């Protein structure tokens, strides 16, 4: 059993870790655009990857979503929402980009 001040320190450390990681990922993404070293396609892919990693970091450290078993099905809700988002966003982009290609 850990005391209350122990868990308090641990929680503050989680927030600070998340903040530091988010800060580093943000700076990396902006630096890639400000001082371009790679081609535009590679830079775009790297920005998206850095953004995704940062979203995972913030879910983990700020929203406290873990893979651990929880009393509620919040992880399942998130995964289901992600599925819906992937289907709708992916479907929209595929159909409309395809349509544009055919219209041009």
């Amino acid at each position, binding site marked *: 059993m850990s005391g209350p001040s122990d868990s308090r320190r641990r929680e503050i450390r989680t*927030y600070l870790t998340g*903040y530091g990681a988010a800060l580093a990922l943000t700076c990396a993404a*902006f630096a890639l*655009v400000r001082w371009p070293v790679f081609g535009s396609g590679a830079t775009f892919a790297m*920005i998206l990857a850095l953004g995704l990693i940062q979203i995972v970091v913030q879910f983990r450290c*700020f929203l406290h979503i873990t893979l651990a078993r929880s009393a509620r099905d*919040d992880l399942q*809700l998130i995964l289901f929402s992600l599925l819906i*988002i992937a289907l709708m*966003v992916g479907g929209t982009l595929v159909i409309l980009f395809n349509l544009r290609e055919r219209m041009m």
Partner: protein
Amino acid sequence: MSTGEVQHPGLNLGSTDAETHEAAGGDVFGFWMFLMSDAVIFALLFATYGVMLPATAGGPTPASEYKIGPTFVETLVLLTSSLTFGMASVAMKHGGHLRQVLSWMGVTLALGLLFLGLELHDFAQMFAHGAYPTRSGYLSAFFGLVPLHGLHVLTGSLWIVVMMVQLCVFGADSRVKINVLRLGLFWHFLDVVWIAIFSTVYLPGLIR
């Protein structure tokens, strides 16, 4: 008992307030469902933006309108406000002084309003360049997506004011604590949406 268990997303009260912790499960989970449906709305606006991107109708383009400096500052401000709200939640959870909780929330509120001011300044500059929503499909999609996030931040700021008043009037009782937990989820969620905005709207538009 399940005080050690994780009841809901976000910071859990756990053993610091076992009774409220039990009650918080359903309430916070319901709010989490709202946030996820909000995420779906934002995702579809992102898809619309992606589709509308080439539809500039000979008008302003992303490269001519976005500026990396102000966007970076806005990102830092919003990210820092997420940390300060986290500090407010931790202070409230562990029975910190009311003044401590209120001052962390005050800092968060100030950062949220600073973010809104910077964003409005950006929009005003865009309008001055002739980049207004009815100019082209691209700009309609842009002004549908980014100001909606701004409206969420404004709502969140109002909510922070309401919670500060509730904390002063009622103290940190059970109901107020659950409200602050929900507000925390909302505020952190807004930061996640902003990550998606700067990495799919602003930065790609600025790649040379």
